């Protein structure tokens, strides 16, 4: 029912929570929310909540990048976050979210992976970013990407002695060199909105997720939703995302 209402309002240029089309809900970011993690962040986007935790583990490098650490992003749509989520292995939505966040981080080269090499060809740091959905009130993707990059910025590299990680002791900050930000532009008929509420998400024709780096370069795109997007609307959607990304990036510390 709220969907119908949201739709009628959007037709008139309004939204349920009185925001402008290009306005995000109030964002609150707390860091170091889990003290066992190498870094963590809790992002609240209106009522939506996501926690990102970073853990580092040593492992072998990929054969084609012997001098670089590795990055793995995983997302859990925990059943506590929404009546629509079920326990069990990650479904396609969770897998997609994790992979879109992953590409935003990876393709922006936000981590200086060469600094995460311990012994070339043998041992490197693997950076795990685990995204935990806490409450799903819409736009989990942008909230997750924001939590991920904030957690990385606040992560430290553990001390390592003779192959053993000394827990609780750190040698340096994680080498984060860029701050990619994800902005999803929702489309409903001829209207474009940012940061959709869940009621709005359910009535969107399509969505385009855009990951933008500090230098305004676009480093990942993902079209979502059941309808197509008119080719001529794409540039406008990029512009909206680039503009908003500057604002969001200021929140990442």
């Amino acid at each position, binding site marked *: 029912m709220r969907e119908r209402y949201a739709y009628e309002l959007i037709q008139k240029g309004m939204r349920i929570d009185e925001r402008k089309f290009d306005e995000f809900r109030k964002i609150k970011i707390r860091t170091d929310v889990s003290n066992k993690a190498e870094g963590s962040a809790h992002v609240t986007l209106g009522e939506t909540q996501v926690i990102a935790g970073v853990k580092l583990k040593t492992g072998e490098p990929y054969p084609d990048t012997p001098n670089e650490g590795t990055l793995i992003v995983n997302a859990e749509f925990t059943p506590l976050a929404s009546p629509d989520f079920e326990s069990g292995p990650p479904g396609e939505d969770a897998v*997609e979210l*994790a*992979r879109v966040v992953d*590409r935003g981080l990876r393709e922006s080269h936000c981590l200086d992976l060469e600094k995460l090499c311990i012994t070339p060809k043998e041992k490197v740091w693997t950076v795990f970013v685990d995204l935990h959905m806490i409450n799903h009130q819409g736009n989990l993707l942008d909230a997750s990407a924001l939590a991920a990059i904030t957690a990385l910025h606040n992560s430290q590299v553990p001390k390592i002695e003779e192959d053993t990680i000394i827990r609780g002791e750190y040698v340096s900050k994680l080498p984060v060199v860029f701050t990619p930000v994800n902005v999803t532009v929702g489309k409903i008929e001829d209207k474009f909105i940012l940061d959709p509420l869940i009621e709005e998400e359910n009535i969107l024709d399509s969505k385009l997720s855009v990951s933008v780096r500090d230098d305004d370069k676009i480093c990942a795109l993902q*079209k979502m939703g059941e309808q197509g*997007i008119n080719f001529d609307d794409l540039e406008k959607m990029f512009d909206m995302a680039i503009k908003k990304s500057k604002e969001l990036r200021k929140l990442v510390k």
Partner: protein
Amino acid sequence: MGHKSDKKLIVNGKRADGRELDQMRPIEMQIGLVNRANGSALVKFGDTHAIAAAYGPRELMPRHKQEADRGIIRTRYNMAPFSVDDRKAPGSDRRSTELSKVIRLALHPVVFVQDFPKATVDVYIEILQADGSTRVTGINAASLAMAAAGVPMTDLVTACSAGKIDGKLVSDLNGIEDNFGEADLGYAMIPSKNMVTLLQMDGALTKEELVTLLNMAKESCKKIYEMEMKVLKEKYEKALE
């Protein structure tokens, strides 16, 4: 993507396989091949070969998955274990899970799902040989398979890739270009409606580069559209004598 490499992908203005920057690989399309399916197609983009089969509309089980006012589409993208250099473990993984979803959404906009409420159209894509651009090759095969299956559709879907290699924008990435290039775009559209139904990009591009790349992909899709129409018509005009 993003692997550092000294490999030269462009030499004297031409790509390693001899193509011009905006040139696609040779494309082959064939309808049929899987007679048990309601429709099937094989599409080759150079050395990338994808076969797709469409079943349905057919009864959807379990019943609780049925939707009273419309049908659903299910897709599966799968790479054969022998389709790549190092054998791929059979079965689904995170990549194929995501691709199955985006492919489904790339096809969905053309299907009249309201024409077959409570039922399903199942589209299965198998990559038999992989040399880059597998998902878009698969989408073209799927679009043809669905049309050949008589699924009610507003139009055909066409798909292609484009990307940036050695600093240049190019059409239709092969495997090496995909692995060692700077950016890669997966793109599908309904050409006659100017609607984009798949859009994925990894890399780092300025907005201007991205827009140029999108226009290149759009041009490629127009050519693919002509080919899809032609292969379908030939197949069925022959059937009418």
